[in-house]
């Protein structure tokens, strides 16, 4: 009855996995459809203003853009299934090579940010929830409200002005990463992008934690624990946090999914070579295979984070974990 999942759980997991795969597949159809509606075409984007009708037609034929849509999609899907992510229409490089290290770069950014923001939010949120309506809580509410009032792009700009160019000249305000270079090799460059992402997610997550800590504090079993004579600090640690964790896990999953989207803006500001900048470029160039792949990666992250969140939730919630036994 412990750690291991029951049979019905395993079934649930399989169902969720299939569902997730279906979501990703549908996303690919949607993105494909969307790319067809995009005005302009990659051949033109590649050739620029020197393009002649013949050269455009030749390039279109070469890129396979003149085939019927369905066959283009199915061909693409067929290749994906066999592990061939296709070729960038623009650089003619394999998509896998193109987005491979950028995916890692983005992942580094997201993982570091998450590794900072999750414990920080839990700490801040729990403290505020415990000192509800007292000074710390009020200060935290004002700060988080202020942070949500600033769009991420502006936060990022402010950070650059404050720490890089104008006020203090402590940190690089631009990220320069050669291809294949490990972003961890230059930690100083990562500080500001990570800070921007952390500040973007912190208000949401810490308030979520605060809310659920308060909910649990209000719960009957915490009252009962107190009436059992359990000291206050143990109440927080043992009775509150263990139960307040569940919404925090769900929130973290959402926040992670959000972070993967948030990198679009932050990467843009910091010139960070990740999926976000790749996507913006690909959209500008109408580089469909790349757009599709990046969107798929985002969608897959969303699905995976959610699934992980759910699995973890099930794992830490005895009621769910032991269901069906």
């Amino acid at each position: 009855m412990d750690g291991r999942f029951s049979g019905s759980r395993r079934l649930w997991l399989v169902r969720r996995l299939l569902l997730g795969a279906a979501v990703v597949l549908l996303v690919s159809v949607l993105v494909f459809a969307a790319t067809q509606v995009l005005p302009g075409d990659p051949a033109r984007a590649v050739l620029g203003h020197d393009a002649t009708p013949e050269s455009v037609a030749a390039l279109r034929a070469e890129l396979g853009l003149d085939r019927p849509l369905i066959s283009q999609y199915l061909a693409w899907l067929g290749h994906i299934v066999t592990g061939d992510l296709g070729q960038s229409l623009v650089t003619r490089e394999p998509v896998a090579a193109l987005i491979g290290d950028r995916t890692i770069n983005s992942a580094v950014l997201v993982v570091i940010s998450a590794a900072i923001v999750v414990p920080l939010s839990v700490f801040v949120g729990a403290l505020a929830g415990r000192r509800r309506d007292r000074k710390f809580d009020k200060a935290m509410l004002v700060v988080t409200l202020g942070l949500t009032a600033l769009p991420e792009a502006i936060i990022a700009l402010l950070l650059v002005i404050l720490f890089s160019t104008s006020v203090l000249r402590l940190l690089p305000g631009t990220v320069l990463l050669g291809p294949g270079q490990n972003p961890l090799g230059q930690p100083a460059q990562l500080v500001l992008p990570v800070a921007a992402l952390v500040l973007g997610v912190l208000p949401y997550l810490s308030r979520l934690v605060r809310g659920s800590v308060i909910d649990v504090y209000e719960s009957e079993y915490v009252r009962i624990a107190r009436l059992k004579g359990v000291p206050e600090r143990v109440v927080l640690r043992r009775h509150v946090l263990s139960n307040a964790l569940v919404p925090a896990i769900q929130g973290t999953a959402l926040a992670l999914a959000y972070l993967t989207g948030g990198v679009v803006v932050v990467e843009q500001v910091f010139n960070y070579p990740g999926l976000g900048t790749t996507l913006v470029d690909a959209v500008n160039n109408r580089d469909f295979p790349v757009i599709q792949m990046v969107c798929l990666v985002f969608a897959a992250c969303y699905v995976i984070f959610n699934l992980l969140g759910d699995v973890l939730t099930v794992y830490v919630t005895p009621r769910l974990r032991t269901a069906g036994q």
Partner: protein
Amino acid sequence: MTAVTVKGLRVDLDGRGVDVVDLVDFEIAAGEVLGLVGESGSGKTTAGVTLLGDARRGATIAGGSIVLGGQEVVGLGQGQLAKLRGSSVAYVPQDPAMALNPALRLRRQLDELFEFHRPDMPEPDRDARIKATMREVGLDDSDAFLARFPHQLSGGQQQRVTLALAFLLRPRVIVLDEPTTGLDVTTQARVLATVRDLCASHQVAALYVTHDMAVVAGLAHRVMVMYAGRIVEAGPSSRIFGEPVHPYTRALIAAVPQVSERRELTAIPGDTPMPGRRPGGCAFHPRCKHADPACATTVPEPVEVVPGHIVRCLHATRFAAEPAQPAPALTAGRTGERGEVLLEVTGVDAFHGRKQVLHDVSLTLAKGECLALVGESGSGKTTLARCVIGLHRNHTGTMTFQGAPLATRARDRSRESRRAIQYIFQSPYNSLNPRRSIGETLREPLKVLFGMSAAKAAAEVAEVLERVSLSPAAAASYPDQLSGGERQRVAIARALVCRPEVLICDEITSALDVSVQASIVRLLRRLQDEEGLALLFVTHNLGLVRAVADHVVAMRAGRIVEGGPVDDVLDRPGDQFTRDLIAATPELSAVPTGDPSRLPLSLEDPT
């Protein structure tokens, strides 16, 4: 030996200078069970938790003293209170499902008490004590059981775990706050027996808080009656139930339905006032039929009518001298020919998912008759009722109304049958749309069924409100402005406005105080007499069955085990199951002592 002494206790709402309870004095001897009864909102819980030095968020202990084993509790710091709680004084909450931490295993939750109160106790001793206590409360003491999480227990088992938590360190005093409200009668009987046993064997003083008079009657040595934050009467159980003096106590007792005899239930008019809105003088005077002008102005002092029996009433001595409570009028059951059969249910099998919850159920309901459907919790009563009204779709079998078959879904039924059969839900809090005024709620059926214009409907609404004894002005109010009893009347009005022939009532009084329940029951009976309504009355309260029903059908695990005229079934139960049910139901009129031999069932938990 006195375990706890309370004097002049007062609890105020923060910042409002309004008291929730005041002038509370009592003491409990070791091994004694003191009952604390009163209507909802009278301040029982508030008074109870003060023994642990606790007041709920938004309230504080404003005065008085609580001496527990020689130590003053009022004014202790958090640390000292923490030492006291759990070891010297323990608390058993109302809802065990909410009170146990869902993330911790039972052993952990039990062991925690040693961790903070007996840190030196060696592990094997702890284990032995935990297991002994588990056995004492009638639970499995195996390690596997202790490794369970709360959600893996039944409601009764959960309640027993909270008892084990309370008794584990053998406290001096234990406060039990309605610990059996959520349980069915058989489980309740077992839990009560456990409480009584443990208190006696460990010489624990218990304060037993409840609104169920019958429960206290069978359990407590002494009883206090609370009204509007004051103790209005206190004395030995036998005195309180045998010779009650305060008009409030008398009225409460008269409202309790009995299984053993059919009697007229009398209701107390009005509602318990909330803190801050309590009338001056004797707080009960607006609802008291003996009140005179003095009652409105003079605050009554406690009067000891006989030694140990204290009454807070201006006329205490006069009432004490009068012959005790005039015996409640016994009423005769309605007999005679059954009328035309309106509703017929034949061979219904119903399912929740793949699980079959009704097996071949058949019954008939005749015009003007009240058919009670009884059975323990989970036996399928609600499911059956929902099949009939067309809310539960997953079933087979036939149902006819006036001979015409009823479609499975309400939506597919004829307008005529949707009008003629009406349903009243259990919870008056849930069955009214909180965002719509009473008037709107009552106009809705008129609009949907008759397409009636708002103007015309207004007259109907006013009329129906009067029929359920509510003022027509209530049409403008919203549900949260009404008391539970008033809401349930609105729910009845919503059914009545359709001019139905059959009313299905699913435990419509179980969320209400006995006095309010009495008034609802009276209302239903009146409607039945005046309008010839047929009632399908779902309940697990056998006293109510006796009071309202003509026929009764008993269900067990989805099957009908017995049926017939009420008096036949209740006086001469044919099925063992019905007999057990009757035996487990606490009765007021039974000899009120703490005599364990009177307990209906043995301690063993059959699960």
